[in-house]
């Protein structure tokens, strides 16, 4: 599965567009992490717990996007976009979507 935020692939051509596919993930960290983040907010700096949280969410969302694309018979997802939003306090949502396509080698 090829995932790209490009639309035109240098050595491939798009044979068929199969529509929109999306993946999303809402996750939260346990209170211990929230507690550390609370303290980190006093001193500033990277909130590692939350960086990790968003990383995990992004991976899961991407996996779900890929699964949707596979299920509808696509072999690539182009023009992929990520968006992050806060759905509840301490929980982050990562949403990814793109165009599911069938690509073939350019002759």
């Amino acid at each position: 599965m090829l995932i790209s935020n490009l639309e035109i692939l240098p050595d491939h051509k798009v044979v068929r567009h199969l529509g929109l596919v999306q993946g999303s993930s809402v996750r939260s960290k346990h209170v211990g992490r929230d507690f550390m983040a609370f303290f980190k907010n006093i001193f500033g700096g990277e909130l590692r717990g939350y960086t990790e949280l968003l990383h995990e969410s992004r991976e899961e969302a991407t996996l779900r996007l890929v699964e949707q694309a596979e299920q509808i018979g696509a072999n690539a997802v182009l023009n992929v976009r990520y968006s992050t939003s806060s759905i509840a306090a301490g929980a982050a949502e990562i949403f990814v979507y793109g165009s599911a396509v069938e690509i073939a080698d350019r002759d």
Partner: protein
Amino acid sequence: MRYENRQPPEGINITRVNPYTQFFKLLLAATLFLVLLVVALQFLGGFMAKRVPFTYEKQVSDKLGIDLNSAGASPEMIRYLNELAIRVSPGMQLGESVAVDVHYNSENVFNAFATMGGNLVFYRGLLKEIPHENALAMVMAHEIAHINHRDPMAALGGGVTSLIFTSFITGSSGLAERFLNKATTLTSMQFTRSMESAADEAALRGVNALYGHVNGAADLFEVMGDLTGDTNRNPNILERFATTHPLRDDRIGAIVSLAKDNEWTLEGKLTPLPAEFWQWLNVDD
């Protein structure tokens, strides 16, 4: 190039869970987690409190200069209360350097409490309900026992820290906050109640050593029960569970059985309060 809209199958972006079992599992786990946290913090607080030397506790509380409001008290009353504290202490196996200082508060509240630095406060509202010296000695010994057990320190160490931690956790749970707070308060109550029972036991020991009997020791609890509306003569297990102090009948029953176990006599001559006691009480009126 061809364009079509293929519909991906359902449920890729949704984790399949049974909302009901998920909810009950979470609720159980959260409650258990908080109860264990409170228990751990309370034990830790009590453990630490006993290791702080009493002299240090006294220094800190003196520096803080908490106003215990002895205004309006007659000097004789304060002298009498302090003298009673000294008389009831010998039989209580007080720890090294533990000393109490008794204060008087002229508010008409039915209460007496022990706080940091060995300070005891007796309210006028409680003193005016006292029928005889034996009952007063019991309350005095009870509060001294709290100081001796370092309960005010334990409450500060265990109670306050567990309050901070649990409120952070329940706070992040949003709507579940109220429910989880109940669980933590109930857990904390078990600790204060066991402190009260331990203080009752030590106090009874002191009273028995002073008078040679424990007659009249429970009399104030009768009065207290009437005043606080604890008229329930047959409390059920839930009502017992949800109080900070042992309920009246349990408390009186515990005193009687303690006396029996230690072969202390429940019969004996009651010592009256000093004749001027009521004058001292009314000095601020």
